[in-house]
């Protein structure tokens, strides 16, 4: 498409603020982190200076404007106070009916009031990344910063430079955790905040774990989150991550998830966006060993002026790997959906099977969908396909339901629910799957999708 290349004049200006924050607060930022983690910061900020905050001329942010959030003056960028944690601890999320090992985070930070790190059955550890540095320093040195390496998104490097806390999970070889680990990430503050946290998950070989991350906003302030999660999945291991996003319209959530897989491992990622002002999830799957298999799912339900952007990159680096992407969206009112999916098959990655599907339903003329499914293939013995659709509910199906006595309104809901369920059905944890189905139904009905026992109206 012939299109002018223009250089954003405010490019550096937008980024300068964050460079200043780094320079002025570097001591505070590095105070509780280990020297190893701190050793990444200078290089990361230099990289950020080079790349800046992604603007519209950045191909992978072509349809997402970050300005309203990054130009905003936030009041706070760092660790919340002790009192805030006590308040947050009182929160009980409905999904916790799940029998899970729970962690409650506040603005991405691990609470200072509980055990900072604890051991679960099978020798699994969950806790604060800073605390873990003291015990698992060699593990952290082996994995931290490795999987984000070479990424061209300035925000990933900004996170590496500025993040001062997050979660650490260690699953030793052979450990099988029956109950999922659930991280409830609450965002709450009396002031507008920009927070950045950094998580690291290490799953050694022959292990099996499911991780659920629930994001909630509890106060109406303007929030911006820029989170990076690095995940290592060892040989023959099984790892699932499910992200449930339920934030208010004044909140921006930017997540970057890097999943590195060894041979014969299986990993899945499922991003379920129920609510949120601006959501950008980038998920990077690296198939780093023969026979690895990954699934990347996403469901986004947006209305009002919400904006949901899913960026997926599946990198087939070794032969005989399989990948599958399925992203679906229902867009109402003036909302915008974006899907950027890429399958990249390296030279030599023969025997690759890679599939990708993105289906969208627009409910109004003011809703928009931009989809960009991409295939980049440098090996020939491959089976790759992708499909993308933007359309409406199927009129034939609608009539079929009506002809059985179901009202048009109900029929529409059922079809949307069915449409969404194709993503939800891939959740392995049954109670969570049912819970998600319910939340999706409530969301589609226009009822606030906050959890029933939550006292905060996060809609």
């Amino acid at each position, binding site marked *: 498409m012939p299109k002018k290349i223009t250089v954003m004049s405010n490019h550096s200006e937008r980024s300068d603020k964050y460079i200043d924050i780094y320079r002025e607060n570097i001591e505070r930022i590095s105070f509780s982190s280990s020297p190893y983690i701190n050793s990444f910061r200078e290089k990361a900020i230099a990289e950020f200076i080079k790349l800046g905050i992604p603007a519209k001329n950045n191909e992978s942010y072509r349809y997402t404007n970050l300005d309203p959030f990054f130009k905003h003056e936030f009041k706070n960028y760092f660790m919340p106070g002790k009192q805030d944690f006590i308040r947050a601890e009182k929160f009980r999320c409905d999904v916790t009916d799940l029998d899970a090992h729970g962690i409650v985070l506040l603005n991405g930070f691990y609470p200072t009031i509980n055990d900072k790190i604890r051991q679960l059955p099978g020798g699994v550890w969950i806790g604060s990344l800073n605390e873990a540095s003291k015990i698992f320093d060699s593990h952290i040195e082996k994995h931290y910063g490795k999987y984000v390496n070479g990424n061209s998104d300035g925000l990933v490097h900004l996170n590496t430079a500025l993040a001062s806390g997050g979660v650490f999970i260690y699953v030793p070889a052979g450990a099988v955790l029956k109950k999922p680990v659930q991280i409830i990430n609450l965002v709450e503050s009396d002031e507008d905040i920009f927070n950045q946290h950094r998580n690291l998950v290490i799953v050694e070989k022959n292990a099996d774990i499911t991780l659920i991350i629930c994001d909630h906003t509890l106060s109406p302030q303007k929030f911006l989150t820029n989170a990076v999660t690095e995940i290592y999945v060892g040989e023959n291991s099984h790892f699932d991550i499910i992200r449930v996003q339920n934030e208010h319209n004044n909140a921006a959530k930017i997540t970057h998830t890097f999943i590195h897989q060894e041979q014969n491992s299986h990993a899945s990622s499922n991003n379920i966006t129920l609510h949120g002002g601006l959501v950008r999830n980038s998920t990077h799957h690296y198939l780093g060993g023969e026979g690895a298999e990954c699934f990347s799912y996403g469901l986004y339900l947006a209305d009002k002026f919400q904006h949901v952007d899913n960026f997926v990159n599946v990198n087939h680096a070794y032969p005989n790997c399989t990948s599958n992407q399925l992203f679906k969206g229902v867009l109402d009112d003036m909302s915008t959906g974006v899907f950027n999916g890429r399958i990249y098959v390296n030279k030599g990655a023969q025997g690759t099977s890679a599939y990708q599907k993105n289906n969208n339903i627009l409910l109004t003329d003011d809703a928009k969908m931009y989809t960009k499914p991409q295939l980049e293939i440098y090996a020939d013995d491959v089976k790759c396909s992708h499909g993308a659709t933007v359309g409406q509910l199927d009129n034939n199906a609608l*009539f079929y339901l*009506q*002809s059985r*006595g*179901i009202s048009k309104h109900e029929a529409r809901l059922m079809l949307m629910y*069915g449409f969404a369920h*194709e993503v939800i*059905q891939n959740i392995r944890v049954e109670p969570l799957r049912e819970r998600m189905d319910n939340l999706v139904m409530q969301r589609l009905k226009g009822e606030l999708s906050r959890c029933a026992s939550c006292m905060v109206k996060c809609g």
Partner: protein
Amino acid sequence: MLTINNLKAAINGKVILKGISLEVKAGEIHALMGPNGSGKSTLAAILAGREFAEVLEGTVTYMGKNLLEMPAEERSREGIFLGFQYPIEIPGVSMVNFMKSAVNEHRKYKGLEPLSASDFLKLMREKKELVEIDSKLANRSVNEGFSGGEKKKNEIFQMAMLEPKLAILDETDSGLDIDALRIVANGVNKLRRPDTSAIVITHYQRLLDYIIPDVVHVLYDGRIVKTAGRELAIELEEKGYDWIKRDAEKNNSDE
């Protein structure tokens, strides 16, 4: 029960039905036959309330009410059931959910309480046996991945669940092997009550060996060109439709 009077309808400006008149009384089974493109499926779809054809003229009265004014779901709740020629696949919506919604909507319409989950499942079980449908189908998404025969059986199963007063079966026999055909036909016969009626649309007389019609109509070029008893179906099977076409064209040119 159902009175169609001089019904004319068009799709995208093309007139498909050119004046259909038909009366179905309670307890009767009418067979509607005719070559491809004669308007059989269009008529069925119009009766069920599908908004793709434009009704140009005529009236349809069902149980004393103006049928054409009702939305599709209300017709269903009033007891009209359409067995689709090509049942629709609805990914992600399970059969159980789908039928539970439908049955409870019908009950609500009649002023009844919704069925409890266990009563509903019991009902499902009974009806499944009636039409010899595989239990596993109930756990799958509506028609998704069903074979042609399974889809048709599923239509009859839904009919059993909803207990219609007037069933319109649009080429329910097409694509069925003889065993499936027998099962489908038996299902229809078992569901028959003295006060219920059916319109059976078919190409072939084969189905009519199992479902015995009271009246047979032949539709050609948007008109009912012949109405007689069951023997007409047998005659059609022997002679084909050509003589009907010839007669019809002759009558047309006489006009």
